[in-house]
């Protein structure tokens, strides 16, 4: 038994002694390092060592919670006592359901890569490899970062759950600049592979060079191939909208949909994939100790699963899908099922369109209707009659998510593992061709 699970058990028992009927303690220990680059050199090297406990407490159907440093058990006990004193003063929670008594989960193998632990100790070799790869390309300069982490979690609940898990992760992205152009690419993985790291830098540099000279493209409707960076960003939003909490809180385009409803093109399958041990975010058990499993959110265009913990499942008359956060459900990792097309084949499908390789600042006018806009920020390539003929200046995609996921024409067969600022949930996805996407630009 490790110190981490011991600490979780101790805190759980102390909460029960304080008078709570139920308690779940998720203790987390994170050792992490990040090298951030700007102007082709390191701008800062950051190293974190953090141990935190997240605590769920319930009594007489009241729900209370806290997050505290694990190193302050006395203060944690004081806060738990304060929360116990509060419980009689708040009404029962509209979300309350008893903590589950789940079966033991099948451990997920291969979450730790010892090579990443070495990088955690000395990241300078990876830093040098990134700088060297970038130097081999005709770019002006690059920026970006890589982060390596060892994350341990331990869960102890009043229903007898006592579980531990540890995993390593690598998150990185590089943005290269050349003339007017820029290119950005990213990677999320649980494994160290210097080739994949160098590929991120090389892809970013290649896109920067391809967009070195840019021209204005008028706003209008275009067939657009979205890169895995952009698909990842938009489908993070779609997947989160399938969480029961988003539906309850009025932040979902699935509010007026039922499981079994057709919501997208037949070609589209989006999966919550917690048991894909290659992606950061994968885990064998959720924050209530329920074994996770891989499930489609949308399968062949049909809404298949709303993501639940035991509380939202009770509210919806459903079963937990193994997506519990301590209070609300969460998405673990996302996979988009690959199609059959190569990128070249998809290009041939485009007469007058664009390849948008990266975007940022996606905001919604209305979650229920899925109306949004987002801005291109790196290479946006102009496609005429199946060929890339130039690069476009920045513009917006301004459309509605329900309409876009219905208008999918082709899905690529090669997948990429993306994790960065704008793709917060690690996502494995191919390129996707969308028909008749609305674009916009400033008027003056």
């Amino acid at each position, binding site marked *: 038994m490790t110190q981490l699970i011991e600490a979780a058990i101790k805190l759980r028992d102390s909460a029960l002694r304080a008078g709570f009927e139920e308690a779940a303690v998720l203790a987390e220990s994170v050792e992490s390092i990040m090298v951030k680059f700007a*102007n082709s050199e*390191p701008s800062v090297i950051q190293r974190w060592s953090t141990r935190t406990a997240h605590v769920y407490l319930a009594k007489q159907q009241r729900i209370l919670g*806290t997050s505290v440093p694990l190193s302050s058990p006395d203060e944690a006990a004081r806060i738990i006592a304060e929360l116990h004193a509060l419980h009689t003063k708040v009404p*029962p929670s509209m979300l309350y359901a008893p903590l589950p008594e789940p079966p033991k989960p099948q451990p997920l193998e291969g979450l730790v890569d010892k090579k990443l632990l070495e990088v955690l100790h000395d990241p300078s070799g990876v830093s040098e490899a990134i700088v060297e790869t970038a130097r081999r390309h005709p770019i002006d300069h690059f920026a970006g970062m890589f982060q390596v982490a060892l994350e341990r979690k331990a869960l102890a609940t009043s229903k007898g759950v006592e579980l531990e898990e540890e995993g390593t992760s690598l998150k990185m992205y590089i943005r290269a600049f050349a003339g007017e152009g820029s290119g950005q690419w990213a990677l999320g993985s649980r494994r160290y592979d210097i080739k994949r790291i160098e590929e991120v830098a090389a892809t970013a540099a290649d896109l920067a060079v391809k967009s070195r000279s840019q021209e204005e493209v008028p706003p209008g409707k275009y067939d657009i191939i979205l890169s895995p960076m952009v698909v990842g960003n938009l489908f993070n939003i779609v997947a989160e909208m399938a969480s029961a909490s988003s539906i309850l809180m009025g932040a979902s385009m699935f509010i007026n949909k039922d499981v079994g409803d057709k919501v997208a093109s037949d070609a589209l399958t989006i999966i919550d994939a917690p048991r894909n041990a290659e992606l950061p975010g994968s885990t064998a058990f959720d924050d209530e100790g329920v074994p996770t499993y891989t499930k489609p959110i949308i399968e062949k265009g049909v809404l298949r699963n709303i993501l639940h913990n035991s509380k939202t499942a009770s509210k919806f008359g459903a079963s937990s899908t193994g997506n519990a956060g301590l209070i609300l459900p969460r998405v673990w990792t996302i996979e988009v099922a690959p199609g059959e097309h190569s990128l070249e084949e998809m290009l041939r499908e485009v007469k007058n369109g664009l390849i948008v390789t990266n975007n940022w600042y996606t905001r919604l006018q209305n979650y229920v209707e899925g109306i949004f806009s987002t*801005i291109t920020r790196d290479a946006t390539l102009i496609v005429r009659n199946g060929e890339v003929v130039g690069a476009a200046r920045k513009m917006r995609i301004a459309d509605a998510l329900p309409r876009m996921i219905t208008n999918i024409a082709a899905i690529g067969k090669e997948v990429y593992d993306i994790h960065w600022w704008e793709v917060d949930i690690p996502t494995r996805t191919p390129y996707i061709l969308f028909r008749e996407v609305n674009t916009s630009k400033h008027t003056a």
Partner: protein
Amino acid sequence: MPWQHEDIVLKAVDYALSLGAKYAEARYHRTSRSSLASRNGEVIGAEKSFSEGIGVRVLADGAMGFSSTNVLEWDSVKKAVEEAFSKARSHGRLMRSPIELSEEKVGRASYEVIEKKRPEDVGIEEKVSYCSDLWKHASAAIKTARVATLTTSIGESVEEKVIANSDGAFIRSRVPRVSVWYNVVVTLPSKGTVQRFFSHAASGGYEWFEKWNVLGYLPEDVKTFEKIILEAKAPPTDRPVDVVVGSEIVGLMVHESCGHPSEADRILGREAAQAGKSFIKPSMLGQRIGNENATVIDDPTIPGSNGFYLYDDEGVPARPRYLYKEGLINEFLHNRWTARVFKTRSNAAARAMDYASEPIIRMANTYFKPGDHTLEELIEGVRYGVYIKSYMEWNIDDERWSQRYGGLEAYLIENGELKGLVKNPVLEITTKTFYSSVDAADRNLAFYAGTCGKGEPMQGVPVWFGGPNVRLRNIQLRVIA
């Protein structure tokens, strides 16, 4: 104020210097939070949490290392110092431009914000009733459409810091804040949906809740949202019109298109792979970005503000910064690194979200300088146009040039009078067009609360942004189809 951890902070700085650091800084940083969340008047749950730890920054061999720990024992803090130092030094050979800091008169001071109505004097029963009353009044306000969802969160926090650095700074501060956030969805399935996210936040105590008066205005807003669904017509998009932009949008516009591009670290490319670069280049101080009506100030020292502080996290005393002044790019936001590069002085913009975050350049409270009109006068001066009072969707490109705001509550103006509601007008213009098109501003100065995101890992820090209502001439609007 019960100060703690002063010794360990000073010891960390001394230890870093003993290792050979050229500069060292240590910050004890604690944030305690409480919140109550509800949906449709029913409580979801209550939370009380805190985070605390020590963040250390060390300059060695021209590279900057940062390390943090939330284990407040000397062995852990010592290890954090060693990690920051060794990781910086191991990257020294990759530094083409070794990092140096400007010389500053750093402070030795203590300050705190005092709550007039302390959180401990407001019972949780009162907060429960507040959420319940909000739902009752808002949901009963309309008859044809319905309020599908009203999610509410009431929060309070206390941020405490002890900062020391090797240049002699020693700053202790305590800033309490309160907030209320809501998401309301008004729907009539046959006609459509209107959604509004909004938050209030400020430094101080529960005295702010009376000023915000959400209970008073939200039912009226809900009535307006119902009217938007039932009555709003398409905005004029066939020709350029005059646009009165509500202070809520003006505030966001100055934050996005003046504050962010004026951050000197962004101008130097440090955030290029994250929040992006800036259309402002290092040589553009003094260049024209707008007309004489365009003055934007960022001021951390506004009492009660969400972004309030008197010394930044590098120990530099805070002051108002005139970023755009009468249409000219006037001043950048600096920390000590960018000040050194630009051969100037820091204007105290370095701020960290928590102990685990490095201090980086941040806005505090950014606002457009008010004018001398009233709102009525602004509207009276429009023969044909639109008044856009509030927004939902917005974004701006990563150089802060092309910006877009999707109007929520908006009205047609004809012959100086407000006519009916218009639906989903979009203001999509460049930064220069905005600051060059303002022909008048009213005397109001309203502030709006936000959490500004920047950095890697992402740091969300509390800010205000605000301004008056302003009038733009000859703007081509778009509409969300």
